[in-house]
């Protein structure tokens, strides 16, 4: 294991107002350099909130949050975010969306054009660079969402249920794509999902979260060998781990239910 890429200590997040909501309580987390971590849990468990705090979109109400020893204060290109609905700029074509980051950072075209072309090739969209987002399928849009982040060479990839809105078939091919990309780049990834299969298939470590208030319930190390592919879903060990996690989640739900 390398040095800590992400370290979170005693993190709290409370949304104020007439009825304050405690979204996260006492989160402690350490994610190693190059590790693929999944945040797994039902909706309302605060997993997306945790990701937003890591991205710097929101500020915590307590505790500390550091990425490569730098406290998180605001969003930045070293922490690339892939959104659930891709959130591409619809008025820009694929190429313009992908080079948006390098451009606003003031890089010269020769510094990013080759890399942008390479990244589009990596996600299989090199022939669609002049297309507008509306002309692409949901899966292709999400490939652009991944490409525009990779082109900035982020140190950490933050993915918020990126395949949640896709149909089952497309989701599988996107998972395979992400496995291939990760195998090549070995980046630190924090991946939010409510899909147990997806978490086991992709991650090195799974943090199971539970709601009200959101906290980390348990941690599972996934020992499935790398490089992985969709075949991993049917390998020995997969179902055992899945059963254990499901059992844990059911237990949490039972404990959470009002008596």
């Amino acid at each position, binding site marked *: 294991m390398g040095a800590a890429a992400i370290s979170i200590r005693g993190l709290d997040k409370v949304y104020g107002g007439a009825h304050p909501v405690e979204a996260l309580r006492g989160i402690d987390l350490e994610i190693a350099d190059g590790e693929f971590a999944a945040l797994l849990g039902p909706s309302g468990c605060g997993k997306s909130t945790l990701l937003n705090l890591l991205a710097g979109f929101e500020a915590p109400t307590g505790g500390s949050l550091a990425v490569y020893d730098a406290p998180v204060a605001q969003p930045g290109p070293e922490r690339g975010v892939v959104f659930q609905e891709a959130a591409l700029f619809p008025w820009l074509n694929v190429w313009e969306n992908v080079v948006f980051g390098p451009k*606003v950072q003031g890089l010269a075209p020769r510094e990013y054009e080759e890399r942008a072309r390479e990244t589009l090739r990596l996600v299989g969209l090199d022939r669609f660079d002049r297309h507008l987002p509306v002309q692409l399928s949901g899966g292709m849009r999400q490939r652009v969402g991944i490409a525009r982040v990779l082109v900035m060479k982020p140190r950490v990839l933050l993915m918020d249920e990126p395949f949640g809105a896709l149909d089952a078939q497309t989701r599988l091919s996107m998972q395979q794509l992400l496995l291939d990309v990760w195998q090549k780049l070995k980046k630190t990834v924090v991946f939010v999902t409510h899909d147990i299969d997806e978490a086991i298939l992709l991650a090195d470590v799974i943090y199971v979260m539970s709601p009200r208030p959101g906290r980390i319930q348990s941690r599972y190390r996934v020992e499935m060998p790398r490089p992985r592919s969709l075949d991993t879903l049917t390998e020995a060990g997969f179902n055992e781990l899945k059963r254990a996690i499901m059992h844990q989640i059911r237990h949490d739900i039972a404990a959470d239910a009002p008596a």
Partner: protein
Amino acid sequence: MTRGAAAASQPAAAPRSAAAPAAERRWSRVALGWILPVAVLLAWELAGGSEGTVFHGIVPTPSKVVEAWKVWAFGEPGLGLNPYSGTWWSNVVFSTQRVAQGFGLAILLGVPLGVLIGWSKLTAQLLDPSIQWLRPIPITAWLPFSIAVFGIKDFGAIFLIALGALYPIVVNTTQGARDVDRNWVRAARMMGANANQLLFRVVLPAALPSVFTGLRIGLGIAWTAVIVSEMVAVKSGLGYVLWDAYYVGRMDVVIADMVSIGLAGYLSDRLIVFIESRVLTWRRLQSH
């Protein structure tokens, strides 16, 4: 061979036969729209009878209007006793110029103002109340003020046009800038955009569809404003001719003038729609 050729000709023939009814449908749609105006004009013409007027000699028939329009547009041979002879084009140009200037001024002020109000809470708190207080005052109520301050000059008209068009442009742009998808803003900040880049590369393009809505409403008001102010505050243009012709009892010119205003308003609106379809290709594709 022959079978292959027959098979190959089939797919080519199919779209042609499908295209024909589509063209027919378009024609019948256009034709339907013409029924009412043609019927009204015909009834109007027939009601005029041999005198060529309706409503006891007050309103001339379409053919009389066309005659008057011809003289107004191209002049008449012989002695130039008709004050409207051959002045149509220059008056159209006067009014159009004023609309273009006033409307341009409204865009120049309204779009930045709207983006700032929609985007920054501080600007909204600073400016929004003033705009909401001024907005209920109709531009017609500004006429005496405008004449007193600017006199019977071009700028009086331009001021009214700009003011009238400004409100819908500001209000719609504000709405557009306020409703920008939160994830677009987050994505841009994540990629390292600073406040300026956020404003020009995300908020402004995202607000453009609303801006164009504001422009179309504003342009309509601009034409209203130019006619009203030309009737009172300047001595040229379609509005001036309209009021002047009324005073001397030339209803044929009045009606020709009304149609001219409608035509100019329609054409300028088409121009905005054309520009919109060019600028907002993504939007057009989205709605398909």
